[in-house]
């Protein structure tokens, strides 16, 4: 009898446990991992930026996962778009339809980002956070509910440049750059703002080369012969080092003032070492050596320990993106795409440069911009940015009214 009793007690207990497990089961099932799909460039010349962003993201995700998000972790999978719009689009679709990712992030290519935003994010109703591409159209004219940007954009860069250049005695400008979305967007942004602030400024010529054009010397000698007061280079990572190098080779350095957005980025200046041209004006939202705050020092130290080199702006953007993903889902309280989007609106997260807001009206991260001038530093073994002018995010971003105006169907 005794054994039978024990048996029945055991049976009841077991039944109770099963019942309890069934009761709690939904909660357990809900605590799943958040899947992030990354589409970015990991081959070709732009890979240096793609890898930097990925490292920044990994660093942040490792920290976040120690604590977890909604009982689960952030997991991610990457795809190499090879800096090509069609490949990027296919990969984004594959990540959404086959891998069932909760959030898409990427890419460095403005054209690819625009395409994913329109054909995947909007259509499949999946949040897409652009972390390196800088076309202002992403969160401006072509913005919508499902697209976000944690990159600074051409509108912000353009306004910063315009404010700075208008203070100099330049009248005759030459615009030269990469013949694709980013190049044209940044050139338009600078000129739109500059011609407003300084009505007597004029463009005496424009030069467009194909993105990544290796030898820019013929272009620069031709521009030099036209003797402009200042050159606005609308060029990105691919051609940036080539421009700086050609400036040195053609002897343009210190003869004609130039402004290039992100010229002060260390991934651009580092390869040139002590041969980087001095006096080049550049704007960017992040330097690993400025601002010299405790938060930034910690980020740089951790990053350097993990990857052996200091973080560039893509790493910073990606780190910030991971914070937005984690905090967004925490605020939403559930892994739901629509609730996540609502939660991101106006969300503030901690970043190495302080609190950063995701502006609700256009889904654009509000970053301050730093205008610096290249200067050779023996201590750094190459050029760094110096003579900083800091412009607050609100000063350089288009207003919510301007965004609404740009988004109006024409």
């Amino acid at each position, binding site marked *: 009898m005794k054994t039978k009793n024990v048996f029945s007690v055991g049976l009841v207990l077991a039944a109770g446990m099963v019942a309890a497990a069934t009761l709690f089961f939904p909660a357990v099932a809900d605590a799943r991992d958040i899947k992030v799909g990354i589409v970015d460039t*990991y081959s070709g*010349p732009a890979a240096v930026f793609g*890898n930097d962003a990925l490292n920044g993201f990994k660093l942040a995700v490792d920290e976040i996962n120690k604590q977890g998000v909604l009982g689960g972790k952030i997991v991610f999978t990457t795809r190499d778009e090879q800096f090509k719009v069609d490949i990027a689009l296919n990969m984004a679709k594959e990540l959404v339809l086959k891998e069932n990712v909760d959030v898409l992030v990427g890419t460095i290519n403005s054209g690819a980002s625009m395409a994913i935003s329109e054909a995947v994010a909007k259509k499949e109703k999946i949040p897409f956070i652009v972390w390196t591409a800088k076309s202002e159209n992403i969160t401006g004219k072509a913005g919508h509910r499902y697209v976000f940007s944690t990159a600074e954009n051409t509108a912000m860069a353009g306004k910063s440049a315009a404010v700075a250049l208008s203070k100099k005695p330049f009248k005759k400008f030459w615009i030269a750059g990469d013949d694709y979305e980013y190049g044209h967007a940044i050139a338009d942004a600078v000129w739109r703002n500059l011609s407003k602030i300084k009505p007597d400024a004029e463009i005496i010529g424009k030069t467009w080369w194909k993105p990544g054009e290796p030898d820019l*010397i013929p272009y620069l000698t031709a521009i030099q012969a036209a003797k402009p007061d200042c050159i606005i280079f609308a060029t990105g990572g691919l051609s940036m080092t*080539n421009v700086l190098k050609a400036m040195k*080779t*053609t*002897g343009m350095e210190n003869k004609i003032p130039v402004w290039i957005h992100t010229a002060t980025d260390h991934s651009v200046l580092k*390869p040139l070492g002590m041969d980087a041209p001095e006096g080049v004006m550049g704007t960017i939202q992040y330097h690993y050596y400025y601002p010299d705050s405790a938060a930034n020092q910690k980020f740089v130290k951790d990053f350097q320990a993990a990857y052996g080199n200091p973080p560039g702006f893509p790493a910073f953007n990606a780190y910030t993106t991971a914070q937005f993903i984690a905090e967004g889902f925490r605020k939403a309280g559930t892994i739901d795409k629509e609730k996540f989007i609502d939660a991101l609106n106006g969300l503030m997260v901690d970043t190495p440069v302080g609190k950063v807001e995701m502006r609700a009206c256009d889904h654009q991260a509000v970053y301050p911009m730093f205008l610096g001038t290249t200067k050779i530093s023996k201590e750094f073994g190459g050029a760094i940015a110096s003579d900083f002018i800091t412009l607050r995010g609100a000063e350089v971003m288009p207003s919510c009214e301007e965004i609404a105006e740009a988004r109006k169907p024409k």
Partner: protein
Amino acid sequence: MELNITFAGFFSQVLVGLSRAMILFIVSSGLSFILGVLRVPNVAHGSLYMIGAFVAHSVATAVGGVSGFWLALVLAPLTVALISLIAERTLFCHLYEREHLMLLLFTFALALILGDLTKMTWGADYRSLTAPPFLQGSVSVHGTAFPRYNLFLLAVGPVVAVGLWLLTSKTMFGKIARAAAVDREMVGAIGINVSWVFALAFVLGCLLAGLGGALVSPTVSITLGMDHTIIIEAFLIVTIGGLGNIWGALVGSLIFGITQSIGVLILPQFAIVFPYLAVVVILTLKPTGLLKSVW
């Protein structure tokens, strides 16, 4: 926009175009030589050019100083030659009898593999090589600034051209190689080891790619992807010049380099199209290329 072009500006721009053409010639003559003798459309030629640039950078930084630069110019082509010799003896030599499509796919695959190996060896970071001090900066040509390094290229190009001419027309190897280009069976029939002629021709062509890569490195940033740009340009040059004809490669390079630099001066906002426009015009008028093709 007014067109404001001075004679001095024009002249210096032609010189810049000529110096660019020298690099194009060195690379595309190698491609053309391989096309002519081996009948292999070597898509991996651009990758060897890229490897040449990376090796030049490594050698120059490791040794340092002016001697590092000169050593890089010698060692980079030799390294590329060694890589190509291994590739030829292990892979290419089995494939010569295959059809062109097969060869094209094979060399394309090789280009992708070499591209990834480059990334694994050197990483994705941009690199920059500095020319020795006396080749830095610019000189004044009729009052317009002209980069010193480009003057150096203008001197090197003709040396390579003359060297190639002497090699192909004055040496036994050159004569056999040219004969093999026209009729490889006949060359084999008179008792010459065609296999080794092919190997040497292949290595010579690839050496030129490596030399081009080493020479170009002080003027551009050394990056992954520099193989893509050059291989497209080199194939276009070889096509407009006449397949397999080294002098065709020279003519094609001059056309390509000068249309680009003059295009930049005249209509800078459409600068990209000029060399390609020249290609279209030439191929429309003369589909076989300007000079006699050996195919």
